């Protein structure tokens, strides 16, 4: 079996490992390009650049442009979800409000949950990772570029499908987790819940595909020298998140296909009269549901671990403990889904196990928080907007965390389940644990995306409006929840006494909307008139700051060699790199899993329209399946042709590639 091993021996890299915690340089110095480098840069731009015009845009497989589209689309859905939240708060701002009828309201709150969870939270974290992870590990592109494009197009088609149905009065109206039998064939006539079931399929495919790419990129495309203990914490967080996606999402993808089958071809998965069980749906959904909220939260932890070193001028304290905590959180998240079902008639015995698991999962997150606080204590901290949002994370998330531990107890959960106490908990954890770190990440990496800085003044306004708005909007909900206000009610009677606190909560929602408008203004204003940012405006330690802002299409002219956990801080006066990758073909380096030694060169596929065609075929397949089961057959034939032309090697491209290789290495 040794025939296939590389001809040339592994390269002796004259690299010695630097003291583990290098000191952050005061002033950041950019690399000076020689004439030869300028020449190489032109060739690389020509090879890696996207073709011009719309056709080029549609065929693009560059992870930078795909990830940018992904993030912008996710933020558009965030805006739509926010509008829906605004409508909900308007309707609930006073008792017996006739602003929205029950049918419209059920569609709006279901679309709010579905949009925020499936079309914003997971996709934006995954999209941010698709942009940053390849750069942070020192790779030129994500592992499977065409698959990356396919994932984005499927996500876009899913999002458009559900919102077109919303306009056609066919948005799902059974809650973002569509409990059967209400979402079943008998009690949800029409095509509303079918739309939800197919949306799940689209967003699952997109997330699974992205998770596969992130894992393979981190395992096989790391820069030479980046051994496992030198992988940045953000990248560790994204690897853990990707494994959670791989293991959790098939559960809901299969479950939603069961639900669609029950509704279309009369199967009996959830029909208790024919042996099915509605609790089977809850198990299938929440086995995915709880890891899902950690899939949204763990990237937030990763973002904070990426931001804290830059603003405290020292690496995060306790790297091994942090990685262990991330992995533990990933594993434990699969062991506590039944705490969503404490009030259902399942045996009491199992519930105390899930109480223990739900309580203990707070430990890894707690340890991480203490490590960050220790890092802040030991560092010289500068409070720019990203760091403000990190402090906001501490303030808001910990309230959500402790209420989470409260509802972990079976006894208390019987009072709090499905009330506004849980609504308060989930908003504190999601806004605190995901949106605040996300906004911190946007303020931190915006210079890298666009080459311009977001304005600090607007940033501070945005932060203070948000943190006040979140607390004013969601803290009263704790009290409302324990005063009997249940979830998903479109109105309530005046004598319930919930009016005043709901009015306060609605006022808070207005503050949040104003805060997000300030963010949007800051975003669009800075795009053109923000302060221009160099390669590394914040003096970050990880490799994404070694590229220009915004990065060129080839990202790294030479692949950097990593000597420590903070590569950019241990560079000294020269950047050690590896040369020899071809510039006439999209050439990338594949390295070994443990110590990232160069193993072989891998040519990244050229841009192609077929991922889009495959996504359209997938769309035709699943959308027509809503109306007729035969749609699946037609769609799969179309998908076959799309995948065939996607994978079939292009003769000219192959010839050019092989011509450049000598016989030894071909």
């Amino acid at each position: 079996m040794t025939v296939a091993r590389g001809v040339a021996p592994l390269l002796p890299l004259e690299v010695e490992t630097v003291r583990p915690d290098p000191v952050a340089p005061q002033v950041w110095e950019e690399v000076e390009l020689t004439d030869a480098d300028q020449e190489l840069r032109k060739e690389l731009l020509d090879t890696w650049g996207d073709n011009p015009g719309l056709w080029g845009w549609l065929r693009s497989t560059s992870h930078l442009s795909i990830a940018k589209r992904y993030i912008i689309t996710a933020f558009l859905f965030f805006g739509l979800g926010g509008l829906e939240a605004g409508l909900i708060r308007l309707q609930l701002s006073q008792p017996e409000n006739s602003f929205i009828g029950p049918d419209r309201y059920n569609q709006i709150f279901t679309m709010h949950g579905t949009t925020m969870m499936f079309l914003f939270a997971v996709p934006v974290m995954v999209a941010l990772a698709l942009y940053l992870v390849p750069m942070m590990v020192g790779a030129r592109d994500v592992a499977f570029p065409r698959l990356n494009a396919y994932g984005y197009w499927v996500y876009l088609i899913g999002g458009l499908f559900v919102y077109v149905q919303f306009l056609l009065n066919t948005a799902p109206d059974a809650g973002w987790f569509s409990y059967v039998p209400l979402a079943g064939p008998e009690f949800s006539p029409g095509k509303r819940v079918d739309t939800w079931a197919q949306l799940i399929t689209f967003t699952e495919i997109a997330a699974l595909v992205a998770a596969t790419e992130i894992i393979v990129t981190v395992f096989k495309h790391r820069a030479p020298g980046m051994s496992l203990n030198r992988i940045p914490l953000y990248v560790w967080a994204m690897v853990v998140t990707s494994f959670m996606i791989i293991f959790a999402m098939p559960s809901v993808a299969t479950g939603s296909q069961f639900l669609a089958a029950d509704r279309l071809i009369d199967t009996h998965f959830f029909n208790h009269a024919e042996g099915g069980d509605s609790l089977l749906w809850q198990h299938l959904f929440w086995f995915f549901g709880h890891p899902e909220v950690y899939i949204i939260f763990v990237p937030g932890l990763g973002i904070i671990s990426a931001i804290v070193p830059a603003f405290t001028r020292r690496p995060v304290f306790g790297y091994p403990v942090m990685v262990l905590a991330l992995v533990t959180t990933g594993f434990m998240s699969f062991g506590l889904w039944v705490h969503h079902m404490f009030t259902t008639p399942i045996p009491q015995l199992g519930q105390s196990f899930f109480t223990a698991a739900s309580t203990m999962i707070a430990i890894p997150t707690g340890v991480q928080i203490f490590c960050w606080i220790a890092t802040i204590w030991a560092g010289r901290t500068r409070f720019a907007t990203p760091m403000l949002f990190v402090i906001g994370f501490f303030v808001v998330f910990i309230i959500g965390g402790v209420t989470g531990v409260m509802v972990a107890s079976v006894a208390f959960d019987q009072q709090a389940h499905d009330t506004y106490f849980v609504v308060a908990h989930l908003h504190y954890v999601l806004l605190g644990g995901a949106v605040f770190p996300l906004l911190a990440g946007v303020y931190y990496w915006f210079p890298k995306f666009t080459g311009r800085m977001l304005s600090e003044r607007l940033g501070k306004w945005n932060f203070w409006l948000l943190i006040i708005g979140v607390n004013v909007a969601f803290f009263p909900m704790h009290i409302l929840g324990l005063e009997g206000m249940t979830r998903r009610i479109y109105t309530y009677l005046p004598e319930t006494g919930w009016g005043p606190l709901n009015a306060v909560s609605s006022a808070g929602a207005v503050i949040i909307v104003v805060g997000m408008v300030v963010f949007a203004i800051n975003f669009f204003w800075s795009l053109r008139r923000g302060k221009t940012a160099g390669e590394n405006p914040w003096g970050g330690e990880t490799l994404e700051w070694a590229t220009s802002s915004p990065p060129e299409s080839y990202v790294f002219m030479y692949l950097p060699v990593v000597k420590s956990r903070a590569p950019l801080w241990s560079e000294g006066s020269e950047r050690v790199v590896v040369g020899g990758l071809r510039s006439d073909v999209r050439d990338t380096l594949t390295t070994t899993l443990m110590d990232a030694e160069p193993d072989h060169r891998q040519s990244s596929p050229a841009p192609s329209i077929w991922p889009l065609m495959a996504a359209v075929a997938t769309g035709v397949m699943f959308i027509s399946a809503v109306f007729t089961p035969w749609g699946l057959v037609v769609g799969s034939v179309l998908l076959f042709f799309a995948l065939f032309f996607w994978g079939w090697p292009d003769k000219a491209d192959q010839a050019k590639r092989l011509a450049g290789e000598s016989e030894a290495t071909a």
Partner: protein
Amino acid sequence: MKRAGVRAVVAAGVAGALVLSSCERENRGYGEEPAGNPADAASLTPLQPGPTIRVTAGRGPYDENAYKVNEGKFLYSAMNCVGCHANGGGGMGPALMDENWIYGSDPRQIFSSIAQGRPNGMPAWGTRLSNDQIWRLVGYVRSMSGQLRKDVAPTRSDDMFYGPSEQRAKELTPKNATGATER
């Protein structure tokens, strides 16, 4: 240029039809009463004095509305129509899922069959059910023999399974008592 224009118009028409059809299918229409007075129900038999006037095929108000037809299915079991008609296969009462219509297959004729009652035991539901409820039953009865669109007809119910649901029923062209096809 003209052909492109035509194609654009056709595309817009198809898109419009799609929009209208799904809007109507999902319209819950709480509290809306069907317009028109059912009293002018079509006559029971095609026989009429003088020159024969083509009876235009009428449309029930809920033929496009999945929610109302599904509520009709609820009423079908709640009002114990199952007792005589079974789940459409017939028993004491005639079968409802086949192509034979003794008293006419026009929605207004079905309406009057339910409202006025028919010989051999069909009770008069006119005083016991509101017009809206009877029109829902008319919609459901027509879906049993595949008269309604596939995406409007109800699917299985959470009870014992008696056979393919109305959504998967084959479309049968209705015949009246004399065996001649109605339309």
